[in-house]
C-alpha cells in the first residue's frame, strides 16, 4: 500500500476500499461485480460500477474509429442542395462557421466547439488515458487529470444531437429545394451509433482504479 493512505477508516476498511455514491453520498465498501454485472447504489439507484469484458480494447478501437470519422466528416460535403439549376453543398465546418457576422460569430465558435472540437478533444483524452492501461504500461503523465476532463466535457460533446438536427433541417427545406446526402452524412450517422456504444462501455470506477494502482491491476 502506498503511504498516502490514512489511519482513518470506515466499516473497518481503509478508505481506498470505499466508494461514495456521487449522487446521494451513500457510503459502501466497493466490490467489483462480476464482468457484465453492475453495482448500483441502493438508495438512489445510480450505477456505481459496471465493468465490461475487454472494455478497454473495445473503447480504444471505437474511439479510433470515431476520430477518423470526425476528421473526414469535417471536410467531405455533408448535405447538398439543388434548386432551379443552382446548387450548394455544405460540410460540417461550413455549418459550424455559418454564424460569422458580428455577435453571431460567438455562436459559430460555440457550435464548432460542440459538434467537432469538444468531441475530438474527448476522444484524444480517452485514448491518452486508456492506451497505456490496456497495454499494461504505466499511465502517461497527468492521465488522471486528462480522464477527469474527459468526463467533465461529456455533456458538451453534442455530435449526436447535431445528427438529429440534420434530419429536422432536411424536412424544413424539403419544399424549398432538393436535398441530397453527402458522404459525410453517412459517416456522421455511423459515428453517432459508435459514440452511444462507447459511452456504454466505459466504466469510470474501473478506470480510476487502474489509474490509482497501475501495478496490480486485474
Amino acid at each position, binding site marked *: 500500500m502506498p503511504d498516502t493512505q490514512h489511519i*482513518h477508516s*470506515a466499516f473497518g476498511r481503509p*478508505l481506498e476500499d*470505499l*466508494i*461514495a455514491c*456521487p*449522487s*446521494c*453520498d*451513500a*457510503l*459502501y*465498501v466497493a*466490490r467489483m*461485480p462480476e464482468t457484465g454485472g453492475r*453495482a448500483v*447504489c*441502493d*438508495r*438512489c439507484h445510480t450505477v456505481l460500477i459496471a465493468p465490461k469484458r475487454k472494455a478497454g480494447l473495445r473503447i480504444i478501437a471505437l474511439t479510433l474509429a470515431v476520430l477518423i470519422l470526425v476528421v473526414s466528416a469535417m471536410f467531405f460535403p*455533408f*448535405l447538398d442542395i439543388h434548386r432551379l439549376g*443552382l446548387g*450548394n453543398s*455544405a460540410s460540417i465546418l*461550413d*455549418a*459550424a462557421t*455559418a*454564424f460569422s457576422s458580428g455577435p*453571431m460569430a*460567438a*455562436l459559430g465558435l*460555440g*457550435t464548432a466547439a460542440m*459538434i467537432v472540437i469538444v468531441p475530438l478533444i474527448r476522444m484524444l483524452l480517452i485514448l491518452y488515458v486508456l492506451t497505456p492501461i490496456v497495454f499494461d504500461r504505466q499511465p502517461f503523465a497527468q492521465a*488522471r487529470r486528462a*480522464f*477527469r476532463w474527459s*468526463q*467533465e466535457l461529456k*455533456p458538451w460533446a*453534442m455530435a449526436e*444531437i*447535431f445528427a*438529429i*438536427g*440534420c434530419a*429536422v*433541417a432536411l*424536412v*424544413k*427545406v424539403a419544399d*424549398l429545394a432538393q*436535398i441530397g446526402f453527402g458522404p459525410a452524412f453517412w459517416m456522421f450517422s455511423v459515428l453517432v451509433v459508435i459514440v452511444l456504444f462507447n459511452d456504454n462501455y466505459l466504466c*469510470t*470506477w474501473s478506470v*480510476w482504479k487502474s489509474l*490509482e494502482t497501475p501495478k496490480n491491476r486485474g
Partner: protein
Amino acid sequence: MEIPGNSEEPRLTAREAGLVACRACARVWTPDHDRCERCGARLQSRDTGSLQRVWAWWVAGLTCYIPANLYPMLVTDTLMQETSSTIVGGAVEIASHGAYGIAAIILIASVLIPIGKFLAIAFLAISARRGSHVAPQKRQHLYEVVEFIGRWSMIDVFVVAILSALVQLSSVASIQPGPAALTFALSVVFTMLSAQSFDSRLIWDTARRNRRDRTT
C-alpha cells in the same frame, strides 16, 4: 455491492462517517483534503454555494429564453418574398405543410423541454432547502432526466446552423440566422450550467433531516 449493517437502517453517508466524497471519481477522503488526490477534483462535503449558483444560472437562462421566443430564429429569402420565423411560428408553418411529426419534435425540443426544465430546476432547488412530500428517489430521478434531456434543446440551434450554411443559392433562396438563435443557444447553455451546479446530495440530506424530525 457489499452492504454493511441492516438494510432497514438509513444508509450511512460519507458525511456522517466524517469523510468527504469526491463527486468526480467517487473516492472518499478525510475532511482535511481540499482536492481529491486521485483525480484532482475540488472536494466539498456539501456544495454550500450550490443553490445560489443554480438560481443565478437559472435567472440568466430565463432572461435569454424570452427574447429567444420573440425574435426570429430564421430569415428566409426566396425569389418571391422574405420571411422570418420565430420558434413557434416555424413549427406552425411546418405543421401547415403536413409534417406534424417534425413540428412536434421542434415544439417539444424548443418549448416544452426548456419550460419544463425551468420548472423542474426551480422545484428541485426549492425542495432541497425546504423539503418536500415528493420522495427523494423521485426527485433524484427528475434531476437525472433534467440533466439528460437539457442538451437536446440545442437541436434547434444546430438546425439553424445547417440551414444557413446549406441554403445559400444566391437570389433564388437563402437562409440567414436570426438573433433568436444566439439567445436561444445561451439560454440552453445557462440552464445546463444551472442543472450542473445543483448538488443532488442536498435532496437526500433534507429528506433524512425531515424524517428525523418526524420520528423525534
